[in-house]
């Protein structure tokens, strides 16, 4: 037994890697279907968008790259679906240099397929990518068409029906930023003070703890923290709009809810390892103390 705990204290990390692989892969192959409970920041975000009125304009900013797509894509899709169902008009832009535009195009194409009645230029518009992030945001606070002279198809922004009456961010009711890194934070620290527009952020799980400070100070109206936040939003959406269930139950499409099964199993395995590791550590410490005595 002592030998077992000794081996645990000095466990080769490759065994841990193997356990992680099995923990994450198994629920993907054999889905468990665990329930998802919701938290305050996600509910606040959901209810804020629910309280908007038909025809209100929402800006959805793609501020992440392919590396965090499994966390951020489900958030962007869920918010866009909610906007489509509530008949909110949404403006899409991408400010992340490496891959943001491609991801924005993919998600917009997906939503176009799910809601064929949506009209490009009337119900939504994709303004594409612009370099300069913070400078572009400040410019949008003054003049969106100045920051994005054309949409992603090359049509002049001033000729797009949706953009008539939406001159700058003051006419937009909400900014939703799906973000990794700094760009999401700039919406809060630069644009929100500039024009007073409410901001909801969907950061990666690693960055989420930092944004609680902004939630507490009222600079954010809601947050979707990582894949858990995305899964919570999906469950809120399904509960409010049962017709969306079909988008979250097809076996081939990845959703945050499906990802939570793997995360749950992984957390359980890590907690067991922590418990074993600490028990082994204390036994070793006691044995050393006895040997010294």
């Amino acid at each position: 037994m002592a030998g077992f705990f000794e081996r645990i204290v000095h466990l080769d990390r490759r065994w841990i890697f193997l356990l992680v692989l099995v923990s994450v892969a198994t629920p993907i192959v054999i889905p468990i279907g665990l329930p998802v409970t919701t938290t305050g920041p996600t509910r606040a975000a959901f209810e804020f968008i629910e309280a908007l009125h038909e025809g209100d304009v929402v800006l959805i900013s793609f501020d992440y790259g392919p590396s965090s797509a499994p966390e951020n894509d489900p958030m962007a899709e869920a918010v866009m679906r909610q906007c489509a169902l509530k008949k909110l008009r949404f403006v899409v832009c991408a400010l992340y240099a490496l891959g943001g535009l491609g991801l924005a195009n993919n998600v917009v194409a997906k939503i176009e397929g799910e809601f064929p009645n949506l009209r490009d230029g009337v119900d939504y518009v994709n303004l594409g990518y612009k370099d300069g992030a913070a400078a572009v945001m400040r410019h949008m606070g003054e003049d969106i068409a100045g920051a994005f002279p054309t949409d992603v198809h090359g049509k002049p922004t001033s000729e797009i029906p949706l953009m008539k009456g939406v001159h700058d961010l003051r006419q937009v009711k909400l900014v939703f930023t799906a973000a990794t890194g700094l760009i999401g934070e700039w919406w809060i620290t630069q644009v929100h003070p500039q024009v007073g527009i409410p901001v909801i952020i969907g950061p990666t799980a690693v960055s989420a703890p930092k944004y609680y400070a902004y939630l507490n100070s009222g600079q954010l109206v809601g947050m979707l923290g990582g894949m858990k936040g995305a899964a919570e939003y999906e469950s809120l959406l399904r509960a409010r709009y049962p017709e969306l269930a079909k988008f979250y139950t097809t076996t081939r499409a990845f959703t945050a809810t499906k990802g939570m099964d793997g995360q749950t199993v992984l957390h359980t395995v890590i907690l067991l390892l922590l418990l074993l590791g600490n028990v082994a550590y204390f036994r070793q410490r006691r044995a050393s103390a006895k040997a010294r005595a």
Partner: protein
Amino acid sequence: MRLAAGLSLLALLVAAPIAVATPTGTLPPAPPEIPAPLSFTAVDRPGDSGDAILLTWQDPPGLPADAMIEIRRAQPPADEWAEVAEVKPGVGRHVDTTARDGNVYRYEIRVRSAATADSSGIAGAVGPPVVSDPAASHDNWFRFERTNSLIAVVLFIGIILGSIGVARSGKNIFIRKIAGLNALDEAIGRATEIGKKVMYIPGSASMDDIQSVASIAILGNVARATARYGADLDVPNKDPLTFASAREAVRAAYLAEGRPDLFREEMVNYVTYDQFAFTAAVSARMIRERPAAIFLIGYFFAESLILAETGQSVGAIQIAGQADPTQLPFFVATCDYTLIGEELYAASAYLTREPVLLGSVRGQDIAKAILIVLGILGIVAASFGVHGVADLFRTQ
């Protein structure tokens, strides 16, 4: 008889249209009046770079449900009104950013209702227009909404300069121990003893981020130490500007220590701009070359844990430092020493012990103390229902 018949016919001819129009016998209703906006002003937008005119108004009561506020502009002496914008009620302001400095404009504002019919029965009635006084835009010398910020900056600069003045006068400035910086010499000495290299990674951000500037300043000190001890130094870079600065800093450090012969160009090398390609390359380098000491100082993103954990796996002594809190937990869990928050910025003062730099660190601490006191006052005030204190610190 004929007269009576004629009068009756006349009465019938007069009454008939009225009877047809108003089956109930009352007068036809007038088209609903659309009210005009109130208190309409057009002025140069204050505190801006020009080319913008600020229009403000109050929405009148009794607006139709589908009302929109139509704004038009003319450039005297011409009388042609061109549409500028259409705004929903409830906004009360619009900034015309198509105005140009040097031109005088007049603005007209009126309410349009798509569903309301006008007096001829056609939908899309507009209310009476209200015309503004002539207005012209120009750039301004000061943004008044940032006055509180300017006062704070001036005070801060004053405190820093005052503290530097005190330090220059010879007064001893105390600075608490920072374990990570104390361990710098120990780490480099260890690397020299076992004949392995020192690896210094200055973060992923460019030189426009102050953390990168702080990192390069610390790199200068590390390079001096490696020059002194004769240890090998490897500085892989993700950002090209940081790479250029790092190379100059290391070259200057070796020159200053009188060991230019030990400096090699390939010590400071550029890897790639992509975050994870850089991480893969540096991790592989750590595993192959097994450096004895690794410094992870600067602005890191998701790659922080991969680099730190790989460094830990090769048995290197690791000193990390970052001001942004996001990646700090990973550094704390995997590195031997971590510089947290502003310890990174105090490093150059700590390592060089230059009085001027120490004075600025002291000034920064005084400013922090003032902020803490203000914070406590704000909490007390808010607890007693006085919310204006927080508004004093709001800035645009």
